């Protein structure tokens, strides 16, 4: 079929394109909001000006990404109506309600306190300001929660059944607490945090390498490192639990993730494929490196499988995902990055313990710093890959096992969707390039370590810490 006249394919492409681009921005701001809570908390506790400057500097990048995140996120919600009307009608009772909660509980909270967090310095007392920062972080992470509730429910629909093409809910809390929910929320929460930590760490390393504000950025690198000690290993563990639940509830996805064509019975070991070239037409792998008996160890930490693992051939072609190669490699890229980042963390902690991260020594650790710079974009790649596995692997279903994607799409002229899709492709590419350009400009300019500090009453006082600093006399608005 010609792709340009296939409305369903075009609507899918549009959703995938907008989601893939949109994700780049909130992933950073959601995690970074927690970092901002940490540094502002440290400032309120210790009153050391550096922490205040951290809050001000990183919130510039936060604001840039937040604004673009809001802008690029609008079409996500509207597309359910414009391009997926039959789906919306069928699942409105639960799925629509959850999107409504997300907007009114999470988005509004975030947006309502953002103004005070970014422009309210000197207008409100530090504690009220801190409350605003905490609310922004709470709102951001609450939207992670609701989005993942909604998406997990698409993966493992619970709390009701399909009656005459409509999902009738019998228990709303069972639907919220669907089998995938808890682990998926945890996985994504850690993913946003890990991605942001490595972005902040990477930028800090870049400054240290360029010998600009080394002491200042060593501080942020250490805050990042202290947080990553907990986050990176935990993420590997939660990732493993997520794969286990896929094995249990979505065997078609698991088979695609492993590019596994033949089924393996219980009670026997099975090989695990490390690298392969899937050949969908002939239902086999053209070429493959396997680890003998590996699958049992990976899924169950034992040699012999206790439950059979089905291969893709166990389903007819219309009941299993296509693009097996994409799913297979995205899964490996995501897991690989997860282990790599944990390795970077371990190496860095070792350096810290050896005293190599002291202000005098850190500059000479060139390879250490370069590794951190290299690691900065990896979190994004892992998150995008993970979502490709999650949503391409769910196909051919929109609501797993219940509503097929082909039946979920609006009956629109293909030319309409092609037009909007083309606009999105152009506009979002421009947005990405422009965001990178302005982010690099903000980073190039660096932190302003001469801002006056807000006093206890919220009014600005002159910073007396570095005696040689010249107080900034411009009006407050100009110093943002």
């Amino acid at each position, binding site marked *: 079929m010609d792709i340009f006249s296939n409305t369903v394919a075009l609507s899918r492409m549009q959703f995938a394109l907008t989601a893939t681009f949109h994700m780049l921005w909130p992933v950073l701001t959601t995690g970074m909001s927690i970092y901002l809570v940490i540094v502002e908390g440290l400032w309120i506790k210790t009153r050391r000006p550096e922490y205040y400057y951290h809050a001000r500097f990183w919130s510039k990048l936060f604001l840039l990404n937040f604004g673009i995140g809001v802008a690029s996120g609008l079409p996500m919600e509207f597309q359910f109506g414009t391009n997926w009307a039959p789906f919306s009608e069928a699942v409105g009772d639960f799925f629509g309600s959850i999107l409504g909660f997300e907007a009114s509980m999470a988005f509004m*909270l975030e947006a309502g306190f953002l103004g005070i967090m970014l422009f309210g310095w000197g207008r409100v007392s530090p504690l009220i300001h801190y409350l605003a920062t905490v609310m922004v972080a709470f709102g951001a992470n609450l939207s992670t929660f609701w989005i993942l509730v909604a998406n997990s429910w698409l993966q493992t629909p619970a709390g009701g059944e399909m009656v005459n093409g409509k999902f009738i809910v019998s228990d709303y809390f069972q639907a919220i607490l669907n089998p995938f929910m808890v682990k998926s929320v945890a996985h994504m929460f850690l993913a946003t945090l890990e991605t942001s930590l490595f972005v902040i760490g990477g930028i800090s390393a870049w400054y240290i390498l360029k010998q600009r504000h080394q002491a200042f950025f060593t501080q942020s690198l250490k805050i990042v490192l202290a947080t990553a000690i907990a986050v990176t290993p935990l993420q590997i563990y939660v990732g493993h639990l997520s794969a286990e639940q896929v094995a249990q509830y979505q065997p078609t996805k698991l088979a695609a993730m492993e590019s596994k064509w033949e089924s393996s019975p219980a009670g026997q070991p099975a090989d695990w494929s490390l690298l392969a070239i899937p050949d969908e037409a002939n239902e086999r792998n053209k070429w493959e490196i396997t680890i003998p008996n590996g699958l049992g160890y990976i899924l169950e930490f034992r040699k012999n499988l206790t439950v059979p693992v089905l291969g893709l051939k166990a389903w007819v072609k219309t009941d299993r995902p296509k693009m097996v190669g994409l799913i297979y490699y995205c899964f490996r890229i995501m897991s690989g990055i997860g282990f790599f980042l944990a390795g970077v963390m371990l190496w860095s902690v070792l350096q810290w313990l050896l005293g190599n991260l002291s202000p005098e020594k850190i500059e000479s650790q060139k390879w250490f710093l370069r590794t951190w710079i290299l690691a900065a974009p990896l979190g994004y790649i892992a998150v995008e890959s993970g979502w490709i596995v999650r949503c391409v692997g769910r196909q051919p279903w929109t609501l797993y096992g219940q509503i097929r994607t082909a039946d979920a799409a*609006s009956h629109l002229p293909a*030319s309409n969707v092609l037009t909007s899709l083309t606009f999105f492709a152009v506009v979002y590419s421009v947005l990405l390039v422009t965001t990178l350009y302005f982010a690099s400009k903000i980073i190039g300019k660096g932190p302003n370590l001469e801002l006056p500090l807000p006093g206890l009453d919220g009014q600005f006082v002159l910073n007396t810490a570095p005696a040689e600093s010249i107080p900034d006399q411009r009006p407050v608005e100009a110093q943002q």
Partner: protein
Amino acid sequence: MDALLRFLPQVWFIILGLFLFLYVMLDGFDLGVGILSLTSSDEERRSILMTSLGNIWDANETWLVVMAGALFGAFPLAYGTILTALYMPIFIMIFGLIFRAVAFEFREHSTHKFFWNYAFGAGSFIAALGQGFALGSVIEGISVDAAGHFTGSTWDWLDWRSTLVAITLIQGYVLIGSTYLILKTEGELQQTHFRTAKIAAITTFIGAVLITIVTPIFYEAARTRLFSAPLVYVFVAIPILGLLLIGLLLTSLDRQEERTPFVWTILIFLLSFIGLGLIVFPYVIPNQITIYQAAASPSALVFMLTFVGVLIPIMLFYNIYNYIVFRGKVVTSID
């Protein structure tokens, strides 16, 4: 139980009306300020205009997201049908809002502010235009089959009547944007907006009169409803109240009062909304699909009401607090 089956959709109709009103009022002045910025020639003025929105545009725009989410949950059939029917105006609006939003973030750091000024102004205009066409074609009615699914074609939304609504809405946004700027600015700039408010008040009024005349002439269903009791009293009362408010608005502008023009404009918006709500009720897609037909299951309506209903006063509270923190005149951000 029958009473509940009717009551729940009615409650949600009112809640959605409230969300839409808050959006049109609040993002209305954002978009109005954006459109006005197109006529501003110097950089300092534009900076003041954008600074006056910097801390609030995002929260204001979020009312649209809240409204859409609630519509999705409460009236899923209407959500699918209306948005599919309005495919083009909706995406016109979305691209407009995207340009408007990124202009705020990028202009800040840009050395070529000209381009982002234009994105801010043009984005606001395009978004308002998309909204106007969407509103106009919903009032006109959407062609649907017995199951309530869209059966019309791509360009149904575009005709002279929806164009009239779109132009009037833009005038309305310019009006509320001007009165907001009267509140937030001083001196020469404030004087400019006393003038733009006056012009916009008159053009909005003309547009509203035309829409009021055109609606009963072209739509039989609206006509029968309008000219029968009890609605007929309401439709006598609304134009009279409207005239009174326009009179009060023009007087307050002549007297150069700072706050009252904004208040009168909000009341004019509110009055139009009540009028519109009464024409549309009990339909969600006028004269085709009633709120009862389009409603989600009663359990879903209660489920949403439990969470969203509790949040409405809380959302209003912290939004109002935000306005209190940033009250007063905007100070220039240019050295």
